[in-house]
């Protein structure tokens, strides 16, 4: 393992304060870059670094920035997606709470790169301590003129506003986030147009994840090549992995892109608790398809997990040992998606609720073997037929749990069947 980059201040007490973060190098890169580099050069560097969006979709960041219209008369907005709500994911929280200056520096640099004078951080409402530290850091940055007018005497102005969400998971979807930020209901928008063309308040907007932007100062400090070489081909840098579940040492691990999952679980996270056998791993937050114990020899990056039929997603690694009940796991996932579906598109609105009811019925001993095919059908039918990918995310746990653990589901249904159950 190389030196920690994003997490280098995580265990330094009070690193969210400028008095601690400053002497450790905060804003040094921004000061240099704003006075020496042109916006296009930053965009080129970030593009060359192979930085990919670390919120879950993994879209190349530099390429996204280049979607902004040229000769655009409207203001450009930078929106920071800090609505970290994917179950099993808690990496952005660490940056926001423990090293917010790292993020603010990244925002200053990125806003300069895309010629934006106004940036918004949309932070998950439940993140109270992260918000408090972030807000304190923001005030300090303003006081030191790292934000505001004529930053570092460069002539560049940037206003940064923190907006707290109100608890809806869907507001982490970037266009729902924009609607929410505008004061509307958190409904994802139809695309096209994409936010880079028509975004916040109808203006060109770039939306980036917290961790993505936190990488930018390091890329500009050490160079694109350095960053690209940290990771695997096409997947630049390191990544913060949130490891949770039945491991001995759950927590946030900064590891190079492409670290083998087996190594992550057994070396970094200390193996399975009580040395039990591993049963399954969800590699990228609740939405990602599950991997069985036999499928963990995969590289943890966008391309590696895609090849394994799942996704890196938010890099929320949830580890389950042999005592885990997959029916109960699916119940938890189905309940979550039924509760969080925004209700806009009919397949998702009705499909997530339908699936939850069926799983609930199975769990309570009123299931029937036919229900498994109904669940797979509901999942298949809502997948790919909606405005945003929420329905897909809701479908994948259903499909992967039932397909990979079908025998367990069947046994559960047969063994738990209540006498006189209405169904079955």
């Amino acid at each position, binding site marked *: 393992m190389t030196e920690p980059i994003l997490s280098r201040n995580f265990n330094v007490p009070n690193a969210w304060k400028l008095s601690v973060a400053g002497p450790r190098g905060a804003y040094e890169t921004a000061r240099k870059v704003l006075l020496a580099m042109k916006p296009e050069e930053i965009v080129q560097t970030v593009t060359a670094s192979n930085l990919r969006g670390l919120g879950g979709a993994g879209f190349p960041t530099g390429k996204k920035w280049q979607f902004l219209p040229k000769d655009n008369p409207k203001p450009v907005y930078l929106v920071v997606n800090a609505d970290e709500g994917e179950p099993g994911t808690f990496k952005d929280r660490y940056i926001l709470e423990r090293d917010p200056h790292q993020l603010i520096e990244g925002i200053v640099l990125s806003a300069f790169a895309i010629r934006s004078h106004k940036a918004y951080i949309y932070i998950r409402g439940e993140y109270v301590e992260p918000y408090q530290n972030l807000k304190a850091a923001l005030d300090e940055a303003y006081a030191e003129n790292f934000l505001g007018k004529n930053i570092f005497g460069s002539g560049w102005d940037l206003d940064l506003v923190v907006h707290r969400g109100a608890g809806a998971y869907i507001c982490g979807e970037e266009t729902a986030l924009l609607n929410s930020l505008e004061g509307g209901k958190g409904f994802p928008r*139809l695309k096209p147009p994409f936010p880079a063309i028509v975004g916040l308040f109808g203006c060109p907007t770039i939306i980036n994840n917290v961790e993505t932007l936190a990488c930018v100062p390091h890329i500009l400090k050490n160079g694109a090549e350095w960053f690209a070489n940290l990771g695997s081909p096409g997947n630049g840098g390191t990544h913060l992995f949130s490891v949770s579940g039945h491991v001995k040492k759950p927590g946030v691990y900064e590891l190079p892109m492409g670290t083998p999952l087996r190594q992550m679980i057994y070396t970094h996270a200390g193996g399975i608790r009580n040395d039990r056998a591993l049963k399954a791993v969800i590699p990228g937050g609740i939405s990602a398809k599950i991997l069985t114990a036999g499928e963990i020899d995969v590289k943890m990056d966008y391309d590696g997990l895609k090849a394994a039929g799942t996704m890196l997603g938010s890099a929320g690694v949830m580890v389950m040992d042999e005592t885990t009940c997959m029916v109960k796991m699916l119940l938890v996932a189905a309940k979550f998606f039924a509760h969080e579906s925004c*209700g806009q598109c*009919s397949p998702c609105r*009705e499909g997530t609720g339908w699936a939850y009811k069926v799983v609930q019925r199975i769990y309570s001993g009123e299931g029937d073997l036919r229900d498994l095919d109904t669940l797979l*059908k509901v999942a298949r039918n809502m997948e790919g037929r*909606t*405005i945003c990918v929420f329905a897909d995310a809701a479908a994948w746990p259903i499909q992967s749990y039932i397909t990979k653990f079908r025998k367990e589901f069947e046994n559960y249904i047969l063994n738990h069947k209540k006498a006189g159950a209405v169904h079955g």
Partner: protein
Amino acid sequence: MANITIDGKPYAVKDGITIIEAIDEAKIELPRYCYHPALSIAGNCRICQVEVEKMPRTVIACNTRVAEGMVIHTQSQKAKESQAVVLEFLLANHPLDCPVCDQSGECKLQDYYMQVGLYDPKFDDVKVKKTKKAFAIGPTIMLDQERCILCTRCVRFADEVTKTHDFGVFNRGDHSELDIYPGKTLDNKYSGNVADICPVGALTDRDFRFKMRVWYLGSQASVCPGCSRGCNISIEYEKSRPYHLKEERIMRLKPRENPEVNKWWICDEGRYGYKPVDFGRLKTLKTNLNGNTAPFDWKAALEEIAVILKSAHPHRWALAASPEYTNEELYLQKKIFLDELKWNHVGFKAPGQEGYEDSFLMKADKNPNSAGAAQILGLEAGREVLTPIVEKAKRGELEGLFIFAHDLAKIYGAETLALVRKNVKTIIFEGPNQNATSDAADIVLPSASYAEKDGTFTNFEGRVQRIRKAVEPLGGSRPAWEILLELAGVLGMDLSYARPEFIFSDLAKENEAFGGLTFKQIGPAGRVWNKK
């Protein structure tokens, strides 16, 4: 132009339009709920799925733009399967209470189920219960939240068309509910339209609700007589169950699409203004002349009138024509009273009757044919008003009045009518509805309402539009054009037309404004006249 293929046929369509617009132009049927050409694209119902070659998945036609060479399938297995599964989701929590739902028969859930239904229900669980069933959200509309498929057409209508922002979707997931905002009632001047655009039985019209199953309705294309806009409407009437509601024939009015006049909408004033067709009607001839109150027939009545009119001094009688009458009828009035009898005192405009006007559809002038009346009767500005005639009548300077439809009591007050009655020897009234003036008249000729005759109205901008007979003239009433033709006959005039169409063609020959127009040319959308 973009060259595209839909269901195997080539089409050249305008660049940048959506697939659903291209499909509509090609007159191909494709299910849709949230899409409405007048409203912004919501893309939420997801049923307008089509297969586009070289695209990995089916796409929604309402939010996908055509591109050169695009090959679109609306009926392929892939497209139909996509449409079918979306419909299955929409029906999962739908109460399926069609037997007690007023939308039955014109419900898009029913219609599309016939087209793409799976006929193999898999939903086996308890449906979501929602609170508001048969809940009046305002004077005109009833809400049923469980039937709602959350297409948000009504939300967008209130946001984008009336800008009254009445509706919202509350809560989340399958507990989402359509409702009006707390503390509000749906009470705007165009509220009835939300029942029209609601594709299911969630918003129903309180006026029409449970009056009649829609498959018993007949429909006739006409024009709203409620103001000078001339919104295009369908008159929907009972056609096969006369025993059902004995006195009422017109069941409802619906807007008829006309992009030049009213788009897809009508106002509530017009929509609910149909009652006078069936109620308060004059159904029999009446005379009080010379103390003779015995019933008499049309021939006798018109002959008696002819005798009176022939001996009348043209300066001692006055005509109160009406802008509620058709161009054809006003033309016959002009022929008889101005050209033949050479009357001097003519007016048609009642003062003080302007109503609500807005910048959308509603016009202050609540008459459907003021423009036509002015053009045909050819009165100079200021001379069209009834007031000088009424003043003369009050002063006893007139021997007789021939009044079409107007109620002097309503316009000028009961005292004026009483004074007129006292000082004018003979009052002849012709009109469809009873009023204080018809009560006071010596002879009353009952005539057909606008829903009982053919003809044309000219709207405020000179658009000549067709009205059509939906139901037979009530009781003993007859269309005014027929009455006037018969009167002309007994007056010895050479006027004879089999249908209003032929009256119109003579009007078009004689009056430059209507020059060159025919019923055929007017067509379903109307035609603006030639007047500069």
